[in-house]
């Protein structure tokens, strides 16, 4: 079955299954899907990654009651982290827990136990006119809920380990909600991994609310098999004085489309958005970012880097909107790419729309090869050419990895990247 069948099933689900505040969004999303086409190459936002063909493919729906307990994965390297697992989009925690300052569990349970918070934010940050987002809102049943109470400064990271584990071509979705209370401090590490070699499709949605003066580090990793397809649409909203460091690290996956939207809703927000893509084979990675400077005196800083080998394709579309009221905005964007092979491709598109006149904004994109002078310099110290190349590439990646606060995880990712690059 394809997404239309899934849509039909969802459209016929009884409204009594959901709280009424969810139903109003579901109905809007269902209408949106009915009245629009799935993105094809004619749509600017999805020009290089037309999703219509992919979502039209044949998939098996997930049976939410059929899952194996996940094995300890390499990604659970951080001993002191609090861990939540989802299997094929289903959160396997059957209760809402409170640990290390985090409240976490399945969104479906939270919708009952924390109805007030869920009602206030769930579906309200997402852009319902975006078709993958609409499909998720209409048809996804659950996901992960995480909140940190106001003033709580957590010290251990919370890891969300999303595993795709199936022998068949499943279509999985999850809808996550993160709410960080006023003046709280937290680190989230989301790992999207697969123990499946099937042609799976994942369509995830996350909404992240960052209340005034909260400080949040969010690291998202994609490292699935070469046949997997993954669409991730992530919407965040920052309130006054908050700091949000968001890193998207894409290493594996046949196709990864990562939408990252950050809405700066109140004054003095600070956003750092980082991305790293390491891709080879025929991997196709597409990062769409959108930073919305809606009010004055906010700062955003965006840096995306990629290392591409073989016939990998990478797309970077970085949109920054500075609205008329957003005076004294500071917004920097940079996209830097290294192509190791003539078959690899990068499409890079900065998109700055500035409607305020007193702002500091810059953008830049570079595409290049590894620096031959640096390679010879290292060779002249006895370092072999291949080691020199991998040192250079790790150095290039390090600029992003260094932004990750957790030392153990950073070291783990670096060794993972070194391993990926050594195969090339």
């Amino acid at each position, binding site marked *: 079955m394809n997404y239309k069948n899934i849509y039909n099933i969802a459209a016929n689900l009884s409204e009594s299954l959901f709280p009424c505040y969810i139903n109003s969004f579901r109905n809007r999303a269902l209408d949106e899907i009915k009245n629009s086409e799935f993105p094809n190459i004619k749509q600017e936002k999805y020009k290089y990654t037309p999703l219509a063909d992919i979502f039209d493919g044949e998939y098996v729906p997930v049976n939410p009651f059929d899952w194996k307990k996940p094995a300890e994965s390499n990604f659970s390297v951080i001993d002191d982290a609090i861990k939540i697992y989802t299997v094929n989009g289903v959160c396997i925690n059957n209760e809402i827990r409170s640990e290390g300052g985090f409240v976490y569990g399945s969104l479906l349970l939270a919708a009952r136990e924390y109805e007030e918070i869920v009602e206030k934010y769930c579906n309200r940050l997402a852009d319902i006119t975006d078709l993958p987002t609409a499909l998720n809102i209409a048809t996804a049943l659950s996901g992960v809920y995480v909140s940190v109470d106001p003033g709580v400064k957590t010290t251990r990271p919370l890891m969300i380990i999303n595993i795709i584990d199936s022998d068949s071509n499943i279509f999985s979705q999850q809808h996550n909600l993160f709410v960080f209370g006023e003046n709280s401090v937290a680190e989230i590490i989301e790992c999207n991994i697969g123990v499946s070699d099937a042609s799976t499709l994942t369509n995830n949605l996350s909404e992240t609310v960052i209340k005034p003066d909260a400080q949040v580090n969010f690291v998202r990793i994609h490292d699935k098999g070469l046949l997997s397809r993954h669409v991730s649409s992530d919407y965040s909203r920052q309130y006054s004085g908050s700091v949000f460091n968001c890193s998207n690290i894409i290493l594996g996956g046949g196709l990864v489309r990562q939408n990252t939207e950050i809405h700066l809703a109140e004054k003095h927000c600070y956003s750092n958005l980082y991305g790293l893509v390491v891709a080879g084979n025929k991997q196709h990675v597409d990062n769409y970012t959108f930073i919305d400077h809606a009010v004055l005196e906010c700062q955003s800083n965006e840096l995306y880097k990629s290392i591409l080998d073989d016939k990998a394709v990478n797309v970077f579309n970085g949109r920054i909107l500075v609205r008329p009221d957003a005076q004294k905005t500071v917004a920097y964007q940079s996209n830097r790419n290294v192509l190791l092979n003539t078959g690899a491709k990068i499409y890079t598109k900065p998109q700055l729309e500035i409607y305020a006149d007193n702002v500091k904004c810059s953008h830049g994109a570079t595409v290049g090869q590894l620096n031959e002078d*640096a390679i010879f310099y290292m060779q*002249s*110290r006895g*370092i072999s*050419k291949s080691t020199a190349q991998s040192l250079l590439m790790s*150095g290039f990646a390090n600029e992003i990895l260094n932004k990750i606060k957790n030392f153990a995880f950073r070291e783990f990712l670096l060794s993972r990247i070194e391993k990926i690059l050594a195969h090339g």
Partner: protein
Amino acid sequence: MIKITDLHANVEGKEILRGINLEVHAGEVHAIMGPNGSGKSTLASVIAGRDNFEVTQGEIEFEGKNLLEMSPEDRANAGIFLSFQYPVEIPGVSMTNFMKAAINEQRKYKGLEPVKPAEFLKMMKEKAALTSMDSALISRPVNEGFSGGEKKRNEIFQMAILEPKLAILDETDSGLDIDALKIVSEGVNKLKSSDNALILVTHYQRLLDYIKPDFVHVLYKGKIVKSAGKELALELEKKGYDWLKDLEI
């Protein structure tokens, strides 16, 4: 130690070296001087193995081995060191990782186990002190944001770590003020022994006040046109290079 015979080399089809003959023995210091564009740096690069130069004729023998058949890294591991005129910045790669990789490749070449972390740190510390290298620079990315003097000092620091048999210092004095030049030269002099050799490539006599050569060679239009003792450097300083124009080459 090294014997260069009738060496010819091209860059982009243009002949830069046109028959170099040079022999350097252990314990010796040779200075190669000459006007800009005479081929001094090309000679240094060809010995180190830079691949944008094409050797069209001649031989380089290093301790009985045919150097021209070896990769740049093998040359380095066999004991050749080039101090760059323009040391390269390598963003994201720390000096520590860089030197650890270099030391371990050298040890692998010699059939030794990788260096132990404690031993390595001790070595870095000792050599930094020996060459007056600011230890804060060691944790930074290679040459990134280093001043001109710091970059050159870093070259000598690397030389101290790798302990080459033959070091070629390519215009090490360029861009250095007198104080920096003194520090760099002191470092080089401390590393000098009867087992190793030095080739100093320089435009000016200045460096030779601090590092005393046994032989001075004048390179002009890709050939060594004159060789003598250190008094030749002083003569060049007085006369300049204009007299070379009258030579028939």
